[in-house]
């Protein structure tokens, strides 16, 4: 009698172990399948805030945005404060770089920081950086902007700062969207996989 009970309980254990193993195997393959299906369907989103209006800071948002678009991502840049100059028809052609307060900037010769405050230093640094970029085949801001628009990057001007600086919708490049405020952009950014403030 005792041996019969032992036999059936050991059978039960073996059945339970086998069922567990089968179930976990099935579950794992179902999860893997679902994950790969979701990965295929999910379009990544990149939300960038461009807040600076110097030549050196115009590059990172445009480079990252166009690279993201090249990977078929959905990309939007919110241009706010000085960043508006990057998409301003006239000002985007005259972006400059300031050596003052930037000891990391490569200079033709070592110079103390106070010298970088002298008149003429900003145009000099700008010319220098532009020629450095040209030597290394870095795209111009114009070309990157055109690439961004062409590849479907959303160019979103901030309405409040545009108003403060006196910029009109027509001052911005072709392809710029209607101006909007922080709430609209935050809604776009809330569903983004990557959010960057530059």
């Amino acid at each position, binding site marked *: 009698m005792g041996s019969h009970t032992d036999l059936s309980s050991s059978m039960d254990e073996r059945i339970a172990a086998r069922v567990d193993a089968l179930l976990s195997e099935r579950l794992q393959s179902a999860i893997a399948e679902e994950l790969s299906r979701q990965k295929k369907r999910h379009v990544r989103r990149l939300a960038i805030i461009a807040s600076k209006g110097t030549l050196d800071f115009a590059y990172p948002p445009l480079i990252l945005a166009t690279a993201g*678009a090249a*990977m078929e991502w959905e990309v939007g840049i919110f241009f706010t404060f000085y960043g508006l100059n990057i998409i301003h028809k006239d000002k985007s052609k005259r972006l400059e770089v300031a050596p003052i307060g930037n000891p990391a900037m490569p200079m033709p010769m070592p110079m103390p920081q106070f010298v970088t405050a002298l008149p003429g230093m900003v145009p000099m640094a700008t010319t220098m950086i532009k020629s450095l970029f040209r030597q290394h085949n870095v*795209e111009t801001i114009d070309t990157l902007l055109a690439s961004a628009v062409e590849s479907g990057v959303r160019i979103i001007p901030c309405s409040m700062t545009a108003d403060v600086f006196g910029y009109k919708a027509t001052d911005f490049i072709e392809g710029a969207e209607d101006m909007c405020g922080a709430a609209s952009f935050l809604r776009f950014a809330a569903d983004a996989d990557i959010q960057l403030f530059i």
Partner: protein
Amino acid sequence: MADGEATRVDRLLDCRGKSCPGPVIELRKAVRHLDAGDVLEVLATDKGAVPDFTAWCEETGNTLLDWRDTNGVYTFHIRKDA
């Protein structure tokens, strides 16, 4: 793929001299004009081209068949799968 074995190439893309993000922008445009299964040969000199093209292929679901470095000129073979 064994050395010297020829890859069937349907289209060529020359990105030599272009720097980041130029090559991936050009790559996307070129791949759009291919049919599924077509192979694109890309030339590039950008130092980041190998990791960037690898990432691009993984991200877009296309296949990087092979690449080689010939004195700083990279040659890639990319098959359109997506």
